[in-house]
């Protein structure tokens, strides 16, 4: 029932991108259809993800009991079986925790009213121009009785939410700049002020949706059928593709042609896996032998941190954000890349002084009960998830690789583990992989299918989704750590 209402809304909402862009072709096609009186939407037949071939993804109906229960849960909670769920179900254990957390954040007891929660979700997703999430939550927002006027831009929302805009911006792109003054500004704004509990709820929502936007782009999630860009009204036979149908803006048409040519180097990539495993083995064995000096270790971290700023795809072209999405935040130019160009210094955050397990958890659970527990579980599952496989190899201890990925992401945010040798990262993560990680975490809107395809070519799609899970959880934790540290400092 809910799906139906949502779908009908999508046609009537003035949000349709194609209208905004004023595509003549579409308009023409639409007129013709309207003569017939009925317009039947057709899915753009790509499956839930544009990166993963549809046949690789689990078909609804062929799932096992556990997955079926998850689907049922997801459907009950969201009123739909969204593409994110369909992709995440590669890892049912994680999906369960993810859905539970998301359901709690959006629908269960909490300090913020329901429409605020969805609106914050929209704000966060819009920071990364993630029209997929924005569209979903616009529907939900209206469904729970949100004021449609707010959707015309942040300046139409209550002052209280506008105040959150700054935190949203900093959190999404440069979380290390969050200070207790930010927090103080939100908490002491007279009648527009936030309570601590509300703020923690908002921070958790923001970080959740920032990282979910990363996942959406990182796995190339296709738009839902009822959302803009998820459907077409043209008959299947029409061949001239209209770019309006792919509003995620990643030009998948070209890429699909390009990538068919890229599958040549199968033998090369086979050696990649072998080489990676060999390196892991070496690291395991000779760790005790060559002991790097302290200065060496410290400089390795600095090097990695500095380098991570320059790791960027060469085709760094400007992506103009879809107009409908950019309405939800101001200052579109503020992004991660700014600081890398200017070579801004990222201060080092010592995880031994403020870590999630000891400090973050306690603070969240104190101010927003039960959520700390849920997020903690989610982090644990994501960090410890393994099937002991690597591409075609079985019984591999992948903990070293997973830790390298996790710590690399934290390193990009300036978070340092005293007990980690950052030299390992260079050994284990090759450049194309680093480019992918960096893009997904920092500027997800720029991920292309080419990037997705060019790292770890021999690995399965489920493993790439697994990598994405690590990425989004590590990112969420990093953002949370900075935000919660600022709150702690404010409180002391």
């Amino acid at each position, binding site marked *: 029932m809910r799906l139906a209402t949502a779908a009908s809304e999508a046609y009537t909402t003035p949000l349709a991108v194609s209208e905004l862009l004023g595509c003549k072709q579409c308009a023409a096609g639409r007129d013709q259809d309207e003569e017939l009186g009925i317009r039947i939407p057709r899915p753009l037949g790509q499956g839930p993800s544009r990166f993963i071939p549809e046949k690789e993804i689990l078909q609804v109906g062929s799932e096992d009991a556990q997955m079926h229960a998850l689907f*049922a849960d997801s459907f009950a909670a969201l009123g739909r079986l969204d593409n994110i769920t369909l992709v995440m179900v590669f890892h049912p254990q994680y999906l369960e925790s993810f859905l539970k957390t998301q359901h709690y954040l959006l*629908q269960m007891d909490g300090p913020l009213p329901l429409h605020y929660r969805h609106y914050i979700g929209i704000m966060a997703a819009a920071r990364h121009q993630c029209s997929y999430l924005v569209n979903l939550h616009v529907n939900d927002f209206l469904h729970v009785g949100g004021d449609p006027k707010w959707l015309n831009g942040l300046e139409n929302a209550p002052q209280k939410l506008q105040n959150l805009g700054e935190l949203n911006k900093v959190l999404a792109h440069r979380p290390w700049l969050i200070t207790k003054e930010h927090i103080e500004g939100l908490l002491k704004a007279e009648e527009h002020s936030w309570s601590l509990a509300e703020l923690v709820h908002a921070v958790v929502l923001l970080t959740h949706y920032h990282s979910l936007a990363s996942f959406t782009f990182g796995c190339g999630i296709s738009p839902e059928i009822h959302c803009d860009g998820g459907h077409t009204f043209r008959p299947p036979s029409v061949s001239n593709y209209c770019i309006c149908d792919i509003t995620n803006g990643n030009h998948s048409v070209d890429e699909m042609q390009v990538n068919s040519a890229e599958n040549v180097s199968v033998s090369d990539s086979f050696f990649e896996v072998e080489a990676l495993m060999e390196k892991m083995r070496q690291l395991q064995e000779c760790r005790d032998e060559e002991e790097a000096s302290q200065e060496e*270790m410290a400089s390795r971290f600095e090097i990695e941190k500095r380098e991570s700023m320059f790791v960027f795809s060469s085709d760094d072209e400007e992506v103009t954000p879809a107009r409908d999405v950019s309405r939800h935040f101001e200052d579109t130019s503020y992004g991660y890349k700014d600081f890398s160009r200017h070579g801004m210094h990222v201060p080092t955050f010592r995880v031994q002084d403020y870590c999630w397990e*000891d*400090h973050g958890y*306690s603070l969240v659970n104190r101010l927003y009960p039960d959520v700390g527990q849920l997020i903690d579980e989610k982090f644990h599952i994501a960090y410890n998830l393994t099937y002991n496989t690597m591409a075609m190899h079985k019984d591999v201890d992948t903990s070293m690789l997973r830790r390298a990925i996790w710590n690399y992401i934290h390193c990009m945010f300036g978070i340092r583990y005293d*007990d980690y040798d950052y030299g390992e990262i260079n050994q284990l993560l090759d450049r194309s992989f680093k480019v992918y990680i960096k893009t997904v975490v920092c500027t997800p809107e720029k991920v292309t299918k080419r990037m997705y395809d060019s790292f770890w070519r021999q690995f399965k799609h489920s493993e790439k989704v697994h990598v994405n899970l690590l990425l989004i959880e590590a990112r969420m934790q990093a953002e949370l750590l900075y935000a919660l540290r600022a709150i702690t400092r404010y409180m002391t």
Partner: protein
Amino acid sequence: MEKMSRVTTALGGSVLTGRTMHCHLDAPANAISVCRDAAQVVVAGRSIFKIYAIEEEQFVEKLNLRVGRKPSLNLSCADVVWHQMDENLLATAATNGVVVTWNLGRPSRNKQDQLFTEHKRTVNKVCFHPTEAHVLLSGSQDGFMKCFDLRRKDSVSTFSGQSESVRDVQFSIRDYFTFASTFENGNVQLWDIRRPDRCERMFTAHNGPVFCCDWHPEDRGWLATGGRDKMVKVWDMTTHRAKEMHCVQTIASVARVKWRPECRHHLATCSMMVDHNIYVWDVRRPFVPAAMFEEHRDVTTGIAWRHPHDPSFLLSGSKDSSLCQHLFRDASQPVERANPEGLCYGLFGDLAFAAKESLVAAESGRKPYTGDRRHPIFFKRKLDPAEPFAGLASSALSVFETEPGGSAMRWFVDTAERYALAGRPLAELCDHNAKVARELGRNQVAQTWTMLRTIYCSPGLLPTANLSHSVGKGGSCGLQLMNSFNLKDMAPGLGSETRLDRSKGDARSDTVLLDSSATLITNEDNEETEGSDVPADYLLGDVEGEDDELYLLDPEHTHPEEPECVLPQEAFPLRHEIVDTPPGPEHLQDKADSPHVSGSEADVASLAPMDSSFSLLSVSHALYDSRLPPDFFSVLVRDMLHFYAEQGDVQMAVSVLIVLGERVRKDIDEQTQVCGGRGRLPLKRFALHPDSDRQALLSQEHWYTSYIDLLQRFRLWNVSNEVVKLSTSRAVSCLNQASTTLHVNCSHCKRPMSSRGWVCDRCHRCASMCAVCHHVVKGLFVWCQGCSHGGHLQHIMKWLEGSSHCPAGCGHLCEYS
């Protein structure tokens, strides 16, 4: 804390003296440890590693161990420990996983002795053997514990905690070979130092990480653990299974715990986050800390008792870069500030009173004040079963009972059940309520109702016998129509059970009809529900868009054209139509219904102005003849409300408020009832006394909440919900909207059904099927208490109209009432 005192303790010849003092460190401390001679303390942190001498008036920096050109991560200490046998020996745990030992006896400036780089991750804790000179134990994030012999270059043995991070390791003080380790997953393990292959014992102590543990210095086998779940637990390890002896609930996650020397039941704790104080607890009194030290401005990271046999000196280091010596004598004692007396009224007028035993004993000696002389007083005393707290607290509990089996509150329950508050014309309501009051022998109340009727109903219609029809037409236009559900219809079953079974404390309410806004989530219900009597008419609050869904549950079975759809309107629309409905067709229909609904009562009501109140009636009639507007009485009415409320009869005050509704609001708003809260009210005309307005608002809310509280304690859920709904105060009417979740258990496997209310996750069966249509019941479910079959309310009703047997075919003769 300027109140300083000096304490001198003689300890086997040596004398400890000192005062409460603190000194500033250059950097945040992570841990501290005291030298055996109690005269020196070492402070370690990320960028500090110093030894301070504890002098009488101050701390004096004695040695900086952080030497060398470049600060190394080996010096970034997570923990530090001073050997209790050897004054020259120290060990630190570095955040990069290195264990370092230090020998103060070395002549050079650099005192670093040995470096163990065996751990792969941060080392969280190091611990020296209490008696052995060369044995050092470490616990690390990588899940391993290692035992080092300082005479050798590497570890003697490695203990694996099965890949979970180790948070603390402690050698037992009494058992030579035993040590305890605590883990991030909540487990505690006991190990024998000679057997590295497997632990001797393992149990789950906390929910979430166990940050610390400490062995009792004297009682063998007592281990205190503290965890992220904010608890400190004391375990007895001497028995076959680790037994939880005591549990202290603190307000933040527990970072350190240390037994207090010479005080068997005392321990000191500090917290990881948020809370900066150090508490000393008596584990037998887990709710109030025995002492509290409030010097630090940031979280305390290390605590240590200065001397193992002196209970009065505590040292602490903190993230605020300071080192403190606390004197027990200077501690603030929350116990002293706590109110040691407790007083509580029971539902039936009983009074329980707890106070310090000494106080009560003294008073009872001279025959205490006997509160209510009409009733005999029983004096119960419960002796404290625990061993007496040494001078701390032992309290006596006295219970003063009213007459046993007393029907003292019966009138309250009866009145609450039988009063009509809305849904009928004002005159009728007043008459009805007056009659109810009179029948219960409360003549004053009855008269008040009659007077209200006289005041507010137009005079011409007053004496007519045909009250129920004609009065409604003319007189009571402004009446709010919110609820047509009649108490008499549903309350009897509920009331008779709950009314006076005071012995059965956990009697559960068998409500047949649940209001969706009901706050009926009693845990007992959930646990003991069985197939036969599940209150299966659940309405899940967490299902979004519940209103629509509930309507759409089984659209093919609803018959909108049926005139008397029995689903009372109270079940769904909640707030939407509460707002001042203008009198319209609804009103007429309702009025037509009223004689039918209230049955015999309406007939009697028409004869209402009879005996005692009759004379009064004629007087007020006279008043009306002289054309006094109703406004004239508003002051009087307000005073009357206050009078009843002062008397403790909030029932009357609230009932009148509700019944008069709009009328009284218009008049009294400026004076008493500012709480309209609708936002539609015009600005107050006399806004001269905002304070008194505010006051009035509060007092009204207070009446409402007290009445609702009373109703709920008598388990009159339906009445209390009606009151909540009819209340004009927003603060009250939103009571219905908090925690509307209803938890349901599966009727097959008895497990809670978490996600949806009608399908069980575990046994994959639908919980309740309608016996008539064989569909799942997702809305209101009615079932026979005889044969436990049931189904959709309407289906069952329809079925039983035509047949008296159970629709399931079990042969039971079901009754629907």
